[in-house]
């Protein structure tokens, strides 16, 4: 019963926030985040939405982030959808994702045009070689940090290795690896029976 009470309060809180936060403000805030978030969006989201705007509590932010990470889609755009939705429903979600995508997509549109006409200059080739190598290090560091944070059992490393083998050595499609190994891993982490009996 207390669960239901919290839920109602949460809903009411969301509606109050919706009344306060105008669509234009949501769009502007995500536009700013989309324009300044060099090097990764999540810290900027937390700084702007939680610390500056107080649209979310830290607890709500972490909760929404964990949903974002479990679903397909980039953290940045999933967070824009979820926060926009919480602040102002469907329209909030639409302006959130538009705002966060607009600056980077316009920038990359221009970069694409410049790259196609000047990408084979000697200095560009040199710079791109360094940028690509650095990107490898960047993704590896994300892998290490995520592993430290979210892998608890030895079995988890087995599933991680299975996924890599399936994609890189057996050249299975990413979708097959995701569904196949994912299913195994979810079953491995299945709820224990006592929890199941509580289900209606």
């Amino acid at each position, binding site marked *: 019963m207390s*669960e239901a009470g919290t839920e109602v309060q949460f809903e009411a809180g969301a509606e109050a926030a919706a009344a306060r936060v105008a669509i234009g403000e949501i769009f502007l805030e995500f536009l700013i985040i989309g324009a300044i978030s060099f090097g990764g969006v999540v810290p900027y989201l937390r700084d702007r939405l939680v610390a500056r705007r107080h649209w979310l509590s830290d607890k709500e932010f972490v909760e929404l982030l964990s949903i974002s990470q479990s679903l397909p889609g980039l953290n940045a755009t999933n967070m824009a959808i979820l926060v926009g939705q919480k602040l102002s429903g469907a329209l909030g979600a639409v302006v959130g994702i538009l705002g966060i995508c607009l600056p980077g997509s316009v920038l*990359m549109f221009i970069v694409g045009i410049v790259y196609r006409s000047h990408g084979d200059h000697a200095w560009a080739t040199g710079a791109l070689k360094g940028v690509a190598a650095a990107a490898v290090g960047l993704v590896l560091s994300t892998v290490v940090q995520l592993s430290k944070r979210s892998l608890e059992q030895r079995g988890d490393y087995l599933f991680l290795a299975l996924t890599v083998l399936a994609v890189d050595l057996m050249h299975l499609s990413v979708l097959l690896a995701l569904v196949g190994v994912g299913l195994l*891993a979810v079953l491995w982490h299945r709820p224990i029976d006592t929890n199941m009996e509580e289900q209606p």
Partner: protein
Amino acid sequence: MSDLPALIRVFAYLSLLTVGGGMAAYPEMKTLTVDVHQWLTSPQLVHLYSVGQLAPGPNMMMIVPIGDWVGGPLGAILVLIAFFGPTAVLTFAVGRFWTKLETWPWRTSIQQGLAPVSIGLLLAGCFTLAKSAVFGLETAAIAAGVLLILLQTKINPALLVLGGAVIGVLSLE
């Protein structure tokens, strides 16, 4: 222009693979855009992905130039809608009731089970990228250097990618 339907199909499909991050879809993106449809070369894909890490906002905006090259500005817009639309709708739909599933025991199972698989997909994508991006001592040193610095400090990763570019230019002669 006749490639527009294929462009939409490919990026809508890739969209659903981005569990854990955009890199998870990279091996499939390479197969589909480079090998199957030949919209760009393998080095071009590596360059776009890497430069894309310097742009602010969601880190997969490198799909925009692919759309532009294949179908002009319309192609760029369609690629954005195809790549972000499906997951946006899914997140919107699931977000409504996911918090209410807090007591559903399988919710934790799904989160715990998907964690190693999504990290595995990132690592697999990283290996695919590394096959084209790391060759010889210099590129290996840049990759290892960036990894070590990021694990030891809280420096902004975009600065290190920029540093990689500077080293790449300086080492030309």
